[in-house]
């Protein structure tokens, strides 16, 4: 059979596809280049090269507080979601309860509702209960939007686990928790790493829920960028964005080496 017949992409398809890959990277490249420009407005190619904007960002207490807040929320909500999400997925996997399908739909529901709707619903709720602006309210909001990713990846990973291995551990004298920790957990760990990464990035990325819940003196990094863009664009935004780009890229490469991340997307 000739190569043209075996369904592998032809020259035209390949060129079009590679052009789309470039299109996907264009705004990223633009932001990184703009961050090194010596002019106070954005120019490409940059007029001269400077690291001044990075210095400005890293010595600005507003940015530093926002970065700190974002990391607290992302680490905190991912950790809480991991514990609650894996426990719930495990109960569903072991068929401990009737109506597993309905329960799963309920646990996934925050993914279906538009994020802005969850945001305004929580705004009213936290205003009425007097919790608005507290770290607790923000953490719970981020658990709501991150937990579905953990549940989904845990359920997907668990579906590949043979229950007999855990039963064997039980027969050999392990208690339920030991059997889970020593047998099942290692098997689902790569999938959980991918799910946790999705959860972490979802929290770190979130604006449409967070923006309704923050108080005046505490904001997260994406909300800060979002509101500063409305005031006007300057290269310090490009610099802090570049830090995020480098951070995301590094995390993705580490996750790929560590757990073969591309298998889970």
């Amino acid at each position, binding site marked *: 059979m000739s190569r043209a*017949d075996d369904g592998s992409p032809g020259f035209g398809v390949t060129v079009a596809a590679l052009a789309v890959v470039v299109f996907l990277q264009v705004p990223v490249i633009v932001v990184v280049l703009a961050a090194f420009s010596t002019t106070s407005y954005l120019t490409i190619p940059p007029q001269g090269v400077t690291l001044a904007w990075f210095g400005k960002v890293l010595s600005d207490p507003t940015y530093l507080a926002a970065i700190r807040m974002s990391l607290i929320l992302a680490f905190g909500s991912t950790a809480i979601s991991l514990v609650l999400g894996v426990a719930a997925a495990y109960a569903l996997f072991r068929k401990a309860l009737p109506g597993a399908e309905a329960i799963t739909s309920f646990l996934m529901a925050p993914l279906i509702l538009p994020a802005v709707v969850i945001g305004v619903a929580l705004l009213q709720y936290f205003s009425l209960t007097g919790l608005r602006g507290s770290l607790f309210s923000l953490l719970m909001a981020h658990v709501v939007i991150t937990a579905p990713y953990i549940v989904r990846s845990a359920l997907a990973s668990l579906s590949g686990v043979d229950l007999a291995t855990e039963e064997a551990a039980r027969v050999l004298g392990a208690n339920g928790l030991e059997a889970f920790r020593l047998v099942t957990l290692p098997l689902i760990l790569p999938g959980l790493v991918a799910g946790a990464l999705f959860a972490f990035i979802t929290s770190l990325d979130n604006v449409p829920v967070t923006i309704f819940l923050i108080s005046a003196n505490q904001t997260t990094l994406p909300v800060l960028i979002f509101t500063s863009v409305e005031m006007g664009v300057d290269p310090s935004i490009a610099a802090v964005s570049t830090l995020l780009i480098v951070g995301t890229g590094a995390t993705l490469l580490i996750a790929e080496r560590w757990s073969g991340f591309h298998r889970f997307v």
Partner: protein
Amino acid sequence: MIRYRHGIMLLAPLALVLAGFFLLPVVMMLPTSFREYVPGLGLAPGVWTLENYTRIITDDYYREVIWRTLGLGLFVTLACLLLGYPLAYLIARGPERWRVPLILLVVFPMLLNLVVRSFGWIALLANRGLVNNLLTELGLIASPLKLMFNLTGLMIGLTHIYLPFMVLMLVAAIRNVPRDVEAAAATLGSSRAHVFAAVTLPLSAPGILAGSILVFVLTISALVTPRMLGGPTFKVMATLIYDEYMQLLDWPSGSALSFALTFMAIGVIWLSSRLTRNWAGMA
């Protein structure tokens, strides 16, 4: 099988968090959407009304925003399909050693902060942005093209943002098409284009539908990109809700719009699941 009591104990923490901080808040928004808003005062006490909902359908401005939102969803979905299919095909059927790097190059912008990506498009599309500067220097245009604060900017930005989701869905769909069916069609004398149109495309239809629904729902729900590229005046439903709450403080109207948006999103998902079930019935 583990016991019922253990199951409850494992499930309860997450279920309670979702009930308390997701279900209850959304349900509590429902009565608000039937209240009357008095500017400066807040909710009129003891007054219940359907007006917040009827206004969405009768008011010209609201109608315009809804049509714009739906049109945007449709266009972005089509654009993602057209741009995404060749790339998904290359990932699914191209050289093996390209696969992982290409997937990572698709996933990277998807994982990157939405605000950062939208900011990149501002730098490109603004009046003195990169695209206009380039076109002016090449002498192709005399005055800058208006690429932001209008439909064009939102279409470009949102297509870029949601393209990775479509590509990943299509890759999975194309990989599921059995290659021997294609080979059989080719052996029987079908041209390459005909094999694609008669075999590959229909067999990847479930993935096309799933990806389209996902992109459509994400697009009509989007807040960040429409706000950053559309500015405060060129509104879609999500940015309208944002302004009702944050600028006008009109919670009744904002909550009615929220339920309308939710209804649209869930309606589209429900319709598509009906459609898939019918397909499964025909097979």
